[in-house]
């Protein structure tokens, strides 16, 4: 069973994505701060991480960097509600697989997850 880590401080989103992906047959792990996300990355080495850029304690970009080091095989979907091209570009240069601009719906998420974990 494929493992998916969700890192987002917006609990409503975490809840929705977790419920949906569990039903789709994935093992879902969640974190609502950057630090928690980094810890769980190291512990679980997930197949996929769905990462928010805006986190209360650290930038999602930093989490992305840690991921590249501790779990290089992990696929990454970056998402944000903040419309700043600079951050989007930075995430791309560090190495994300997919970028999703908020708001996005579950069908779109499912398509990307399936493609990455094929």
């Amino acid at each position, binding site marked *: 069973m494929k493992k998916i880590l969700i890192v987002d401080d*917006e609990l409503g989103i975490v809840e*929705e994505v977790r419920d*949906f992906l569990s039903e789709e047959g994935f093992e879902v792990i969640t974190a609502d701060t950057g630090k928690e996300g980094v810890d769980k990355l190291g512990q679980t080495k997930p197949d996929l991480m769905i990462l928010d850029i805006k986190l209360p304690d650290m930038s999602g970009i930093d989490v992305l960097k840690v991921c590249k080091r501790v779990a290089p095989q992990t696929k990454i979907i970056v998402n*944000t509600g*903040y419309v700043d091209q600079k951050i989007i570009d930075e995430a791309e240069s560090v190495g994300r697989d997919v970028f999703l601009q908020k*708001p996005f*719906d579950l*069908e779109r998420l499912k398509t990307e997850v399936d493609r990455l974990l094929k």
Partner: protein
Amino acid sequence: MDIAFFAYTALANMVTSIALGTILLLYYYRSAAIRRFFFFCLSIAYASTFYFLWLKTETAEAALYFARHFTIGMVLIPATYIAFVMAFLKIPARTEKIVNSVNLAVVILYLPFSFHPMVIQSVESKMLFPFWPEPGLLFHFGFSYFLMTTVYAHYLLWTGMQKEQGIRRRQIRYVLAGTVIGFVGGVTNFLLWYDIPVLPYFNLCISLFLLSIAYAVIRFRLLDIEIILRKTLVFAGLVSFVFAIFAAATFIIREILNIYLGISPIWSYIISIFLIVVGFDPIRNLLVDITDKHLFQKKYDYQKLLKDASKGISRIESLQHLFALVTHFITMRMRVVSAAILTKQKDSGRFSLEFQRGYPKKYLAYYVAANDPLIQYLSTEKEAIDLEKIREYMEAGGKKKVKGEKPHEYDFAGIRRQMEALESVCCVPSFLGHELKNVLVLGPKKSGDVYTSEDMNVLFTLAQESAIAIENARLYDEALSRTQELENINIALESAKGKLTQALNETEAANKQLQDTQAQLIHEQKMATLGRLAASVGHEVNNPLTILSMNVSRAILKFRKNPDLKVSEILEVFQKMEQNISRIKAVVNTLTGLLKKSEKGKFEPLSLKLILEETLPLVQFQTYLDNLTGTEVEFNVPGNVPLIRGDLERLQEVFLNLFINAYHAMAGRRNPRIEVKAEVDPNQPRMVAIHFTDNGQGMSEETQKRIFNYGFTTKPPGKGSGLGLYMCKYIIELHGGEINVRSNPGVGTTFTLTLPIYEEASFGNLSAQSNVNVRDVAQ
């Protein structure tokens, strides 16, 4: 006519020849021509002495003896004269040698026979003269030699004159004329020898002849004729005095004392010698005085005037006057055709021709280079130079002989070219210290005379005096021009004042324009703030929107799986949707509340608490974006703080900026904390003071000073616009308040703002007051 007259003409010739010859020799013994002239004078003196004795003697034997001596003179005179003429004309050495050898041979051959009867057989009475010689065969030979040589001398002088130009030509002409006069005068002595009944009336012409030659020779600079004449006269006077004493003593003592008192004639000589010794000096002084005062008045004045001029010029303070005086003085007093002054240029070192006087046309901007041969000569030799001197040096092979040194070499042709270009005959340098400062450029004398060495000495002295005076005058002129400069500066200051006033007026206009610009800036700043807010609002709206979208897709998915699904089964989803819609609504409402446009410049009573509370949500959006959460904010605004007067929207901008800055200052620091404290200003009872304190990194003094400057920022490029605090200060001042900063690096920063208390009474004309404040700030 008495025989004595002829005797005394001979005596006069004797005196003149000795005097002239000796004086010229003393002055110019270096000149070959003058040395020969001296021998010629001696020959004349010799012949004249014996001529005198022969005519005065009382016995036939003595007369014969003296006449024979006279014939020796007759042969010596042409021999020495032709030698002088050749040296004077600078006849080629070869020719000169041959002619002189021939002459010497003739004289040597003649001398042994001079006392032979073949020259003079006897003396006989002829006309007035009791003892006149009867010439023998050899006399004819000797006289022929005299004639031939004299004719040859004429010939040499004539051809020599044809070859020369200018002064030199005139000089030779004088010698030639003198020779003709002397020849005519001399020949009259010989007519009676050939039984031609003409008395030697013109014997005195020989003196004239001598003077003429002397004059001509000294025209060629050797000595001023006036000095020669003066000295000759004094000398002649003294000789006459000595003779007179002797004659008188001899006559009186011998004739009277001897005859009547029986005193020995020896005493007559002793007494006359005593008289001469006693009387010589007073007589000489008397003669010098008489000649100086009465005969040489002009000369006397001329020297005195030069002296006066030297004294006078040092008192002249204006350079222009001084130069003008020097050139005027020289042209008028020395009777010079033209004069000018070459003055050294301070910057370039070259010499420019100034103060031209008497030139047919004025030279404009004529310059002589510092390395010109003329300038080099004058600088090095420190003496005046004239064309005659140059000619001498050029004849000496372009070298100037200097005692104890190697001959100095100059480009004399170049010097002459330069002087001719300047139409100058004589150039006199003028030094200050060792530096050549000026050159007096003198044209020819009106008389055509050359510059004598005495002239040049006087001019040189004058030039040195004038150098000092010129320097003085130059300094004085400089001082004057500095005074002028000061005046000019004053004028400039006056006009600057005018310009300043104008500039002030312009500034006022510019201020008005600035006010408009600042209003524009406020608008732009607002737009920038709004842009940032919009971005954060986007984030704040997008999160709930995402959830909402997911809720919708969940519901749709569920309906697809089970088309008979009841609404109650997914009620939970709808409730979530409602929550998120409410949240979006709240975010948008906050925004619209903030953005609600208030009327521009219209101040209203505001509660400080309200302002802060309305600002805080915006701050939180912002700081959330910048990852600066976790800051403790404490509001310490007591209830008794009165309302302030202001524009909510703008004051919100101020506090938003202060908060954002504080957050940035505290980034990465432990226990970030902001305290906002308000009180009635203890110093100004009509103001409220707000202290906005953070415990961030603080800032240096330098930064504090510039923090409110437009465009100043400590943030990395692209992060800060440098507009924030500038706008804060501006807005606060628009309100009639102040904003100041106090900071400790590493400890924290406090901004203190003052804002006016809202007063009921002034409510009616708030608008007007705010306008006044705007003006105050702008000025």
